[in-house]
């Protein structure tokens, strides 16, 4: 990429300090605070069915994973077709404790924040390992390396008895200071946990991007030779981008293991890797809030397609499940259409809407 097409034109900062602020305006800060309050408070005001709460939780877990994918693919410009495998590594870190100690062992039920963190660290270690070829290889070869990691991961899980050969390994209910999380509280409890994790991680990403390490990623994406000439180490930067992505994915995996109360290979296949990529693209690669739009949009599409295919199935009285056909079809179409017509993703719509509101009524 010769030009930085992800950055909007018109950069009006007059000092470095100004450019590095976390919040650009006071309005930004208060809007974020208000929306955070809303996110924290709404479940207390409205009670919704557990089924829908699960959907929301799933979206939030995907947000965590996509934040990481966005770092490696969006900011560092390296395609990863094995992100679901990293998520799987986080989940299987938790699962291996369940396997070793039994699903209701005190380590699993009491030390769950540590286990989720450990999942992230193991994910980061594997991320660095898979990123190692990045020291020598460029995009295309890297994409294939991540793909082969995905295949090897699937094979290892399916092969090893320790991982129950890909069958579900159940994980027990957790305990928090208020007692054991019961069935009724389960989704609500994890909603708050995942929300906290997202807030922390999103701030971490935002903060990272204003330090030299984050800017390194962007510089290497835009032109690795220039970055090299300016004294950065492009190879190491790429490895560390993969490690970061692995960390986010691992945390997402740990959360998912506890949320679903079980780990099975069917949630970490190549298909899911592509799903994460679709989320990142649709949300907008190389933007922070893209990681929030993408999973929500794809999940919504998922639900819509499910409803639609059930409806079509009823209309045409087809016994088979049409969703298996319509889902990949719609994903593929969405990816392709976004890439062809809106490569900057939904985040760009948000930007357009914002600038429209900001400049109203003086549009020129």
């Amino acid at each position, binding site marked *: 990429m010769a030009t930085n097409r992800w950055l909007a034109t018109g950069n009006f900062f007059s000092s470095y300090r100004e450019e590095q602020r976390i919040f650009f305006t006071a309005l930004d800060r208060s809007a974020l605070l208000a929306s955070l309050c809303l996110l924290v408070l709404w479940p207390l005001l409205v009670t919704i069915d557990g089924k829908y709460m699960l959907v929301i939780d799933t979206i939030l877990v995907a947000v965590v994973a996509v934040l990481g994918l966005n770092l490696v693919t969006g900011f560092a410009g390296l395609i990863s*077709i094995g992100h679901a495998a990293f998520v799987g590594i986080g989940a299987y870190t938790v699962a291996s404790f369940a396997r070793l100690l039994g699903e209701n062992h005190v380590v699993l039920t009491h030390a769950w924040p540590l286990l989720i963190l450990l999942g992230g660290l193991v994910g980061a270690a594997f991320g660095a390992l898979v990123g190692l070829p990045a020291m020598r*290889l460029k995009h295309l070869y890297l994409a294939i390396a991540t*793909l082969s990691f995905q295949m090897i991961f699937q094979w290892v899980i399916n092969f090893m008895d320790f991982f129950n050969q890909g069958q579900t390994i159940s994980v027990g209910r957790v305990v928090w200071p208020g007692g054991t999380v019961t069935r009724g509280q389960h989704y609500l409890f994890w909603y708050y946990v995942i929300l906290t994790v997202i807030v922390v991680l999103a701030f971490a990403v935002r903060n990272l991007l204003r330090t030299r390490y984050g800017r390194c990623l962007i510089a290497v994406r835009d032109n690795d030779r220039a970055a090299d000439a300016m004294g950065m180490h492009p190879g190491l930067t790429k490895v560390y981008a993969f490690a970061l992505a692995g960390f986010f994915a691992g945390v997402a995996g740990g959360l998912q293991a506890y949320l679903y109360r079980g780990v099975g290979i069917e949630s970490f296949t190549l298909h899911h890797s592509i799903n994460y990529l679709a989320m990142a693209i649709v949300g907008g*690669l190389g933007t922070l809030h893209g990681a929030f739009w993408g999973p929500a949009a794809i999940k919504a599409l998922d639900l819509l397609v499910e409803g639609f295919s059930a409806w079509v199935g009823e209309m045409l009285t087809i016994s088979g499940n049409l969703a298996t*056909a319509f889902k990949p*079809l719609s994903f593929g179409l969405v990816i392709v259409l976004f890439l062809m017509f809106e490569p900057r993703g939904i985040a760009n719509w948000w930007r357009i809407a914002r600038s429209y509101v900001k400049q109203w009524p003086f549009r020129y």
Partner: protein
Amino acid sequence: MSYFLQLVVSGIVVGSIYALSALGFVLIYKSSRVLNIAHGQIIASGAFITYSLTVWMGIPLVLSFALGLCITFFLAMSVERIFLRRLIGEPIISVIMVTIGLMSILDGIIYLTPFGTENFSFPPFLPTTPLVFSGVSVSWTQLVGVALTAAMIGGLSWFFRRSTMGIAMRAVADDQMAAMSIGISIPKVFGLAWALAGMSAAAAGALIGNITGLNFDTLHAFGITVFPVVILGGLDSILGAVVAGIIMGLIQQFAAGYLDGSWGLSSTGEIMPYLILLVILLFKPHGLFGIHEIERV
């Protein structure tokens, strides 16, 4: 010894189909620098089109094989025209993502047909009793498959060496600017590369269908195994694709034949290509015959 020879035979059969499918992949990469992740789906659709022509429409197998090749020829060409033509000059990430999207779309279309979930097998058109050479049995379909593959590869290499269009395609692969300056139409070459790739993929698919039966998952996995093959051979070498295809077929069969069952291992044939892929990427990323054009970063 005869077990070993049996493995060699089946390795060469599988390998030649790998070679054929990798050939199409390399064609696309060589001319247009597009990494076609949807190649497995094109293989599968070629196989399914041939099957439906033969069985559902009752056309003789040889004729429907030729028809299937023609249809995929135009199918792949239109894929290039509709999706990839617009992306010429876009960053490589977008191009790879579009082929991923394409893979999803083709998946969805295939799942709409009965082929997505059910298994089919071609009606036998050759004698079913295998030929036996001193303890090594070779089925007629395998023999015909290898012969067809050799013929296809020979035909394509003739095309690239002798015909005007083939030479034009090589020129584009060599240097796009120079090719353009002597009046070669780049879009035409890209379209033709996709079309030829689609054709060879369809041939590979139909052969797999004849030898092992039609199963979408198998064909899908086949498409992904193309990656280790092309990396081993070198992404832009047609000779490399052929040689690496056969090497990969042999390795797979040996792994399945000798490693499975010992130390409780199973389906090692499936994972071997990827392990080799990782090793090659680390130590010799341009592959056996690829051009040393990888930039160190």
